[in-house]
């Protein structure tokens, strides 16, 4: 059976048509690079996503520091990870790449800070 996918691996957003038998991919077409095939396979078996949010900063010049994951998590765990992020606060100053939750919920990736927030003067 033919299935249509919009690849989200990069902003190019290829429209990929895949011939699928159950969870097996027989052929893919329309992808500009090999990531398109990877994406279709992942989407059929276990869709993975990254998420971004922010955490409270104590004593910061800004109230929030943005965060993201340094790897992908299963799509159906997004709201579980959001609940963990919501419980978290950090002290100023923050640094880009600083880990605020290690191996979040045992999913194999960390929640990391993506913004430098200095101390409030």
């Amino acid at each position, binding site marked *: 059976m033919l299935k249509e996918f919009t690849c*989200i691996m990069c902003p190019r957003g290829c*429209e990929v048509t895949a011939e699928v038998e159950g969870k097996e991919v027989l052929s893919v077409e329309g992808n500009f690079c090999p990531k398109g095939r990877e994406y279709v396979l992942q989407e059929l078996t276990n869709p993975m996503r*990254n998420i*971004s949010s922010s955490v409270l900063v104590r004593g910061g010049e800004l109230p929030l520091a*943005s965060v993201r994951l340094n790897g992908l998590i299963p799509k159906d765990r997004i709201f579980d990870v959001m609940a963990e992020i919501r419980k978290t606060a950090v002290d100023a100053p923050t640094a880009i790449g600083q880990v605020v939750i290690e191996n979040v919920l045992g999913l194999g990736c960390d929640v990391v800070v*993506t*913004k430098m927030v200095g101390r409030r003067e």
Partner: protein
Amino acid sequence: MRQLDTVIIGGGPAGLSAAVRLWEKGIRNLLILEREKQLGGILRQCIHDGFGLTRFGETLSGPEYAQRFISQVEEFDIPYITDTTVIDISVEEDTGKKKVVAASKDGLLEFEAKTVILTMGCRERTRGAISIPGERPAGVYTAGVAQAYINLQNKMVGREVVILGSGDIGMIMARRMTLEGAHVQAVFEVQPYASGLPRNILQCLDDYGIPLYLSHTVTEIRGRERLESVVVSQVDERMQPIKGTEKEYPCDTLILSVGLIPENELSLAAGVELDPRSKGAVVDEHHQTSVPGVFAAGNVLQVHDLVDFVSMEAEELADSVAAYLREDGLTPCGLSVMTDGNVTHTIPQRISGTEDFKLSMRVRRPMKDCRIELVQGGQVVAERRMKKAIPAEMIQIPVKAAKLNEKEDLEVKVVC
């Protein structure tokens, strides 16, 4: 008055990229003026990832992308002033020198510069710009304003949300508000196609079960103090609401993602000619405007979909500014770039016909299996075959000087 080689107006991605590149090219007598308290522009509030794949080969969030350039500005010690708003640019007729006036906490600042770089970005179209009838309650926000409240100020804007317009920021805010516990009922788009990128429809709407209704628009806003509901109607092919299709959606928040407009008040003050199609300056292949020594790049020139292309455009601009300052002039660009009805606009609008350049453009409507042709004197000088072309994606086509002549205008057309 302080004399400078160049003043950069705006410390967002375009201004920062231009500054770093100019510094690397040895142009050091420069200054960045930024109206916000911090450098980084709109990227400071774009906390989602997907930035940087083209420019850096990895996916970054907006603040991380901006920090790459801010760190270079700090490392090189490139001068910048924040919390300072440029209020006027004027050009002295006999000398061609530019006077830049800015308002800061310390009063008015005045600079005289050989060149001015316009990198002010764009702003959002508002409710007023699209004239939605109804009452004027609280709870109606543009997507970028909602994004600033949530991502910078930690203030949630509402709980029951309707989104009008399928621009990328609107879709990204649909996801963001869902993650923060709001219920996003639907996204309505007046056009028969989405205005944002397909990947955002998938990862911001489909992933969260948020429906996208095409050919629909908000026809009334109801509520005294706070928004209570919106009325949505289907529209016909001329985008006029169809009577009898009205449906009321109770909600406390309406997010508008209905387009971006390059912010060109200062460009006009400087006497820069604007292009009604792009709503940015008319520029030549050097990114020079109709005023010699005034250059423009980034969203103030044309609204981009990817920041990577903003940086690259500003870096090309910086190369031209460096050449202008060294040689006191660039190749004259006497040829026009013309478009057919399928093309919304092009950058540049003027070319020399003697140098390589990169053409940026958008198509007016979604098209399949088409060919974009650049034609000069009946000869195709460059072409791009597209399986699909959509207005949401900017298309860039490199053109080689060897194929061009310096006599005839260039035509850009889409052949299906």
